[in-house]
């Protein structure tokens, strides 16, 4: 066994001592991935994970490094990027990923990606055009 594998085992024992918690959080994350475009109800999530709301929020952040809300936003933004690359309009994209207002979608998109959805979409078309030419 290499030095690296020995360290992985140490980290696993230290950070993931409870397999039941790990399994339930993995299940919950899958649920969030499937329902990223919907409003997530914390009571419902807590039922799925068989743990209290407080415990769930704390453990999710500890195991995945970000809050449930941040994770859902990152899924929405990734999906938005994909839809924009495919040529969907900004309004369509906004509603498809569960935002209620294009203004709040554009603001958040800019915060996360560094440019507005329209600038992002134009840049993607330019990249595709250049790649086709080369």
């Amino acid at each position: 066994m290499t030095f690296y594998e020995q360290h992985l085992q140490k980290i696993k024992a230290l950070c993931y001592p409870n397999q039941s918690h790990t399994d339930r959080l993995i299940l919950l994350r899958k649920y969030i991935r499937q329902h990223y475009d919907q409003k997530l109800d914390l009571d419902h999530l807590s039922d799925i994970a068989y743990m209290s709301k407080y415990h769930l929020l704390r453990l999710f952040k500890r195991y995945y490094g970000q809050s449930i809300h941040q994770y859902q936003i990152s899924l929405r933004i990734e999906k938005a990027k994909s839809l924009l690359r495919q040529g969907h309009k900004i309004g369509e994209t906004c509603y498809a990923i569960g935002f209620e207002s294009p203004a709040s979608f554009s603001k958040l998109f800019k915060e996360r990606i560094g440019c507005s959805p329209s600038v992002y979409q134009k840049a993607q078309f330019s990249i595709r055009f250049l790649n086709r030419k080369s």
Partner: protein
Amino acid sequence: MRVTGVSVPVLDQAKALEFYTETLGFVKKLDIPLGDGNRWLTVISKEQPDGPEILLEPAPLHFEPAKVFQKALFDAGIPWTQFEVDDVQAEYDRLIEKGVTFQMKPTEMGTVKLVVFEDTCGNKIQLIEML
């Protein structure tokens, strides 16, 4: 400041290009001659063409400490870097078929599954799947 690339030291740039494109499936982006047979050679992910570039740099051939550091990591089994995939087991099966040497079989560690392989150019590389 923007993050546009990650550097991977390689012992042979031509061999590295072949492995990273034909075996792993990346796409060559830049290939600029730099003299003495060296190249500014980058590849990108097909799935993420706007993502960071991987610079396959020949540092271990020209700077002894880089070579020593790379070998020390390799011998300890420590990956130089990691790439994210949707399904570690599927990638493992695909790469085994292509003759890639693995240090570790797919292993679950808490909320991730990972595997480590050799890139034929002096590095161990980790693939990771978030569970």
